[in-house]
Every structure is written in structure tokens, then in C-alpha cells.
């Protein structure tokens, strides 16, 4: 484990092109920050002279709060921007919005947008470090990192382990980032869900498709259960919520039939009674609240490692 290594990229745009050592490095540092956020005083001064802008062009509660908390616990100055309350409504272009914010001397930008590739677009144009907090149906790297961190914490090293991603793979940036990230850590990844919600080319990523949820759960060490994203569905992908729940919802009865119950993760927010019943979500099999806690630690690690790349005089 190269403890003193740096990240190879100036930005965290997605996990597709991030080398395995960098993922390991982030997870390693997240362990230290987890210790920090469990102290009586949960704040360290590392990012004291830096400003972070959180640009959320798409609604988000927990990711934005998690980033904001991570930034504040590193003592950065934070400016928040959400599309619903800003000049985007008045017709400003993305480029203009961003130039304006950068004119305010921001060192790091955390961005979420409903279009894929926006983080890359910014990374090519602005001198700040960019962290992708979700771009359309493309990637959501910090979520995948915190999922991996939570799995590691609960089941140990991920090398050779089996993870199934359940549900709406087609619209999920979490699924894609999970696949890229976990495969680099030596995990066998499979997906399970309604065939209408599984991209046809998924096998090209080396991902197995398991049609029946019961088979998938029996096979897996971890099940990462995704939210059914009604807001991204422009047509009917399955007959009804009830039908979905019957075939792909995780219930206690289903888990009780298994020889060994896998660890259950969910990126939130949960549609209780759709992907997971309340009974499962609140059971010891689920690590959902661990994921929320670890999210702050992992995001602190990402911000810390990116910020450590630039000396103060080089920051624009």
C-alpha cells in the first residue's frame, strides 16, 4: 500500500479511468478521516485556506449535505449553489455560471448535473479541481467509493468477492461507477433486474447478468440495491410497482430462504416497499446508515488528496 503516493489525476470525474492504486489510496485515507469524524471535535484544519463551490444543477439532499459536511470538517470555506435558486433559471449558460463562480477564486468545484459529461466539460475549461457528484446517467464516483469502503469495512478485502447490483441499471450512474470501481479492486460484478432496465451492452464490461433475484442473492457476498428512478423514466419499463416489488424487491422472506444472506447496500433515498421492505432496510443485514457515515469520510479523503496536489502559489 503506497501510503505516500499522490492521485494521478487533478480531478475526480469518474472511476472508469482511475487506476486501482488511486482507489486504494482514497479508501486508505478515508479510514483516517473516519477516525477524525468520530472524535469529540470533528474538525481538522487541513483545507483552511481553500474555497470549495458546490454546484448542484440537479436536486440532491444527501450527497450535497455529505459534501458540505466533508468540506466543513476539513475547515474549507464553502459556497453553495443550487440551480433552482440561481441565475440558471434566468437563462445563463453553464460556461458563464462557472466563469462567474471561478472569478470568485474557487479552488475546488463539486458539481452535479443532469447531463452526462458536464464534469469533464468543466475540467477542460477551468483551473480548479473538479469532483463529479453525479452527471446524468454516467458516473457518480464518490458514491461508488463509499460503497466499496463500506463493503471493505463489513466483509474485509474485496479481492475475489462477488457483488450483485440489483434494479434499475439503465438509469443508474451509481451502477456504472460501482462496476468500474469494484472490478478494479478485483471484485466479480453481476447485475440483476428487469431486462428492460439492463443495458444491452452491459456484458461488454465483463458483467454477468443474473435474471432471477434469488439466484443472484445466493451467489453474492454483497447486494447493492438501487433506487427505482421514476424521474428518469420517460416510458413504462415495467408493468407496475407491485410487479417490480414482487420480482425484484428484497423482502425478509426472500432472505430467509438463502443459505447465507449477503450484505445489503442502498445508495438512498429508499423507496420503502419497492426495492427493499422496511424490515430489510432496518435489519442488521443492511449497511445503509454506515454508507451515509462513510460518505463523509470518503469525500474528505477525495478533497484532501486533490487539494494536496497544488501548492498555494499555483492555485488560481
Amino acid at each position, binding site marked *: 500500500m503506497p501510503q*505516500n503516493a499522490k492521485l494521478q489525476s487533478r480531478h475526480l470525474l469518474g472511476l472508469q479511468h482511475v487506476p486501482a492504486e488511486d482507489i486504494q489510496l482514497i479508501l486508505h485515507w478515508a479510514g483516517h478521516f473516519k*477516525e*477524525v469524524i468520530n472524535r469529540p471535535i470533528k474538525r481538522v484544519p487541513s483545507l483552511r485556506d481553500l474555497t470549495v463551490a458546490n454546484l448542484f444543477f440537479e436536486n440532491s439532499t444527501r450527497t450535497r449535505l455529505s459534501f458540505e459536511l466533508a468540506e466543513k470538517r476539513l475547515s474549507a470555506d464553502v459556497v453553495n449553489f443550487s440551480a433552482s435558486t440561481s441565475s440558471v433559471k434566468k437563462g445563463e449558460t453553464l460556461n458563464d455560471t462557472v466563469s462567474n463562480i471561478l472569478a470568485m477564486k474557487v479552488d475546488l468545484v463539486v458539481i452535479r448535473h443532469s447531463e452526462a459529461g458536464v464534469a469533464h466539460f468543466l475540467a477542460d475549461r477551468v483551473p480548479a479541481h473538479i469532483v463529479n457528484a453525479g452527471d446524468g446517467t454516467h458516473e457518480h464516483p464518490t458514491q461508488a467509493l463509499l460503497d466499496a469502503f463500506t463493503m471493505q469495512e463489513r466483509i474485509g478485502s474485496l479481492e475475489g468477492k462477488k457483488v450483485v447490483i440489483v434494479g434499475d441499471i439503465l438509469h443508474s450512474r451509481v451502477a456504472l461507477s460501482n462496476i468500474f470501481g469494484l472490478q478494479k479492486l478485483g471484485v466479480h460484478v453481476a447485475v440483476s433486474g428487469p431486462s428492460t432496465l439492463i443495458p444491452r451492452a452491459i456484458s461488454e464490461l465483463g458483467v454477468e447478468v443474473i435474471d432471477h433475484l434469488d439466484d443472484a442473492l445466493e451467489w453474492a457476498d454483497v447486494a447493492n440495491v438501487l433506487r427505482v428512478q421514476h424521474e428518469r423514466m420517460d416510458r413504462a419499463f415495467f408493468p407496475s410497482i407491485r410487479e417490480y416489488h414482487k420480482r425484484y424487491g428484497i423482502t425478509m422472506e426472500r432472505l430467509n430462504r438463502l443459505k447465507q444472506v449477503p450484505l445489503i447496500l442502498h445508495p438512498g433515498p429508499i423507496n420503502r416497499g419497492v426495492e427493499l421492505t422496511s424490515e430489510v432496510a432496518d435489519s442488521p443485514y443492511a449497511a445503509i446508515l454506515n454508507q451515509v457515515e462513510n460518505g463523509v469520510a470518503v469525500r474528505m479523503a477525495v478533497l484532501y488528496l486533490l*487539494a*494536496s496536489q497544488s501548492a*498555494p502559489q499555483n492555485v488560481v
Partner: protein
Amino acid sequence: MAQKTLLNQRDCAVTISRLCHQINEVHVPWDRTVLVGLQPRGAKLLKALVAQLEAEFATGPVANGLLDITFHRDDFRRREEPLAASPTEMNVLIEGKRVIIIDDVLYTGRSVRAALDALGDFGRPERVELCVLIDRRFSRELPIQPDYSGRRVDALNHERVRLNWNGSTLESVLLESPEYAPER
């Protein structure tokens, strides 16, 4: 590379013993004192001091913890690479206590400054003292001095002080001087 022995094994034992006596004299009875070692290199000295205090001075269990100061350092982003962090193991409250910071070598004083900052995360101590084995006395960049020091050393900036531990025993302290080529 030239090497000079600052402390041999006997000197090491005598020095650690003397530090224990000095600390004990000030801190007896041991009900309000906490020893805090700085990670990573102060940890072994902390363990040696605690073991000897408990064995020879009837102190009872000495409250102690290990503090990592990585996130409080002032040279973050001024170095090529991020520094490696070590775990902080502070399972003691220092609110209202008398804290002794333990480290192996006092050099610029910046680690101690960061440690004072980091200690604030665990409460407000009544007072804080500093105990180091080696004090490189002419190299300070901040107004920080030790309350207890094992040996004062005059070392040049390019020289290094190295402690050789064999398990929990300090075997020697060396001063290493890389070849020095004076300009012609």
C-alpha cells in the same frame, strides 16, 4: 556518511530513567496527568516512559494516548506529496488535565505547534508540557522549548538524529552526517 553516537545503550537507559524521575517529581500524585505521544515516532518513547513510571514510581496506571498531527500540519500543500497519517488513539479525556506531550526529537517546533492545535480536539487541558529525548536546540523556527529533555544536541540542518529501538528498548541514538563538501 559519517555517524556519531550521541547516546549508547547505557546512556539511553540512564536518560529515560532521569526523565521519569523529573516527570514524577512534578506530577505526583498521578491523578490529573495524561501523557500524549506524537505519532509515529513519539509512540515508542511514550510506551517506555509509561512502563517505567508504572513499574518504579507507584504511579498506578498512567493515563496516556497517541496523537496523530497530520491534518494539523502547516506544511500541507507545501510539500510534493501528502504526508502519511497514523491512527490517533486518544481514549482519554484531557479536559482540565495536565498533559505532557512526548516526542523523540524536537527540531523546528512545528510538530509541537500542530500537536497543540490537535490537542484542542480532545478538550482544554489545565496545562501542557513538553518532553523530548533529543533537543536540537539551535534549529527552532517557533518559540517552543521543552520542559524535560534527555540530551541537548547541536546539529546542522543537513544532519539527522536517528533513534534505534530494539523492540521496546532504546539501544542507541546516532547523529548521521551526509558527506559535506565545502564550496571552493
